[in-house]
């Protein structure tokens, strides 16, 4: 049975408005998704009925808050199939999670060690490793794409006996391509490297199983999967989390403190200094519940069919460079020769269509593709085929308007 996004629309009242007298068409979901009512309700309920600091007071509200907070950890652990809820660490988002690992592993690196990433990385999964390399004398190495945007057929030689850390995105935010993670993680493991997967662009679309991926760390942001901003997750295997030196210290993460020394708390608290983002945690668990209640594969198939529809129409129209794959992606990333993407973006905006024009925090990838930036339309479960068609129609109008010289 075909999936009907209109059934989900009532859960996203923000989408029912107009923008400059046009129906708002939100196709910037890779930047952040909209939040369904159950997420908003959960946050409101927290403040209306169980707001208190967690793990601290022994009183009615604090117990309720702590219970719900730790239940949320369980929900998120199940959502990514983590074996233990103590393997789920709350962070501000993907960026902070990667930084927790990059600082936490500093003590294992020696001069000449190698940190391996790929060409597809968001700056969040590049700069922390580059800076770590600067601090330790390690070398940052890149598994490159070929000039036509494919993986080199033979990339195993990038994985060497000096590779200590391998970090890769599951799905590229800039062009929507996926990484051959199974193969790469295997190669990294054969060299005894720690492996980290950036799942920021994957979690909203793909059912995630960290045990099947067999990575040491998996990181993602709540706001890209229908949850609130300011909350994210660092999942790690037990031994991998245990080896991390805490990136921040302070309250909550300690067991005993004297002026001479501090005994750190156990996982997960050891890596969570200070009062956590409680409302964010509650909201993120509600977002997991929202997704769990859907037929995930039907959602994915729908989102991919929208991207493929746009791809096919624009390819037929001609004169448009498309950087995303034809299939198995939920976004379309493009540019038009001799027309600035900001001009296209401005016209789409004037028609109420929200997309993203820019370098998508991936300067090296853009340089490799030979463009300053691309225009990206990214889809979520609530987008309709009419919206995909409107995007194509208005984009083609914009090209006509701007193409007169």
């Amino acid at each position, binding site marked *: 049975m075909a999936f009907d996004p209109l059934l989900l629309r009532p859960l996203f009242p923000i989408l029912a408005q107009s923008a*400059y*007298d046009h129906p708002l068409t939100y196709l910037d979901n890779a930047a952040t998704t909209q939040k369904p009512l159950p997420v908003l309700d959960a946050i409101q309920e927290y403040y209306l009925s169980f707001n208190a600091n967690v793990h601290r007071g022994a009183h009615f509200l604090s117990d309720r808050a702590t219970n719900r907070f730790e239940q949320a950890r369980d929900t998120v652990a199940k959502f990514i199939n983590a074996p233990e809820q103590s393997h789920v660490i709350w962070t501000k988002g993907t960026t902070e999670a990667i930084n927790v690992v990059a600082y936490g592993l500093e003590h294992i690196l020696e001069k000449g060690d190698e940190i391996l990433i790929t060409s597809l990385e968001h700056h969040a999964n590049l700069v922390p490793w580059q800076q770590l390399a600067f601090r330790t004398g390690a070398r940052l190495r890149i598994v490159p794409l070929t000039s036509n945007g494919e993986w080199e057929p033979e990339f195993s030689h990038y994985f060497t006996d000096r590779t200590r850390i391998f970090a890769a995105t599951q799905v590229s935010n800039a062009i929507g391509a996926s990484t051959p993670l199974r193969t790469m993680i295997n190669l990294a493991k054969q060299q005894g490297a720690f492996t980290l997967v950036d799942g920021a662009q994957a979690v909203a679309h793909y059912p995630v199983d960290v045990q099947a991926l067999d990575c040491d760390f998996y990181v993602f942001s709540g706001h890209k999967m229908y949850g609130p901003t300011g909350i994210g997750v660092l999942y790690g295997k037990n031994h991998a989390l245990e080896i991390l030196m805490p990136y921040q210290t302070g309250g909550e993460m300690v067991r005993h403190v004297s002026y001479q020394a501090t005994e750190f708390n156990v996982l997960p608290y050891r890596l969570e200094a200070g009062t956590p983002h409680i409302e964010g945690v509650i909201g993120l668990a509600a977002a997991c519940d929202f997704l769990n209640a859907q037929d995930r594969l039907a959602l994915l198939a729908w989102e991919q069919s929208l991207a493929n529809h746009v791809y096919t129409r624009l390819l037929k129209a001609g004169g448009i460079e498309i950087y995303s794959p034809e299939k198995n992606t939920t976004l379309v990333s493009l540019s038009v020769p001799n*027309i*600035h993407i*900001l*001009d296209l973006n*401005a*016209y789409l*905006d*004037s*028609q109420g269509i929200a997309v993203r024009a*820019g370098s998508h925090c991936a300067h090296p990838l853009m340089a490799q593709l030979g463009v300053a*930036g691309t225009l990206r339309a990214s889809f979520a479960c609530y987008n309709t085929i009419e919206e995909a068609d409107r995007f194509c129609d208005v984009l083609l109008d914009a090209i006509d*308007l*701007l193409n007169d010289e």
Partner: protein
Amino acid sequence: MTDSLGQQKPVNIKAQLQACRSKEETFKTLVTLSKTLPRLSTEEKTEQNKIKGCESAVWLIMEENDGRRHFKADSDAKLMRGVLVAILSLVEGKTQTDIQQMDLKAELAELNLSSYLTSSRTNGVLAILDKIKSGSEHRDNQHSPKQ
């Protein structure tokens, strides 16, 4: 030096932009205006003339002649060239003291261009205004093309 505004009269520019009733009309008017901006030569598009903080590339050249400021500008984005035509129409040929006293943000807002002013858009219009103001403040020639 040549008039950077081509044949366009400032009063026309103002009237055209003020007549826009929608974001789309403003877009189309800016595209039309963009065609009146003489393009800079490759030699003039130096790093020094480039404005930092713009997502599109913007170059601005300011010169002083008989106590009056003259401007040339360019961008790789068409809409930005239209915005530049509007901005330059406000300041071209004025003395630095006059420019100093102008509230450029308010004047652009009167032209229906306030959505180009919010810093969140990071399109750098504010950086352009800053450069125009500070350039006139220092009375220097450091942004001239011949240097």
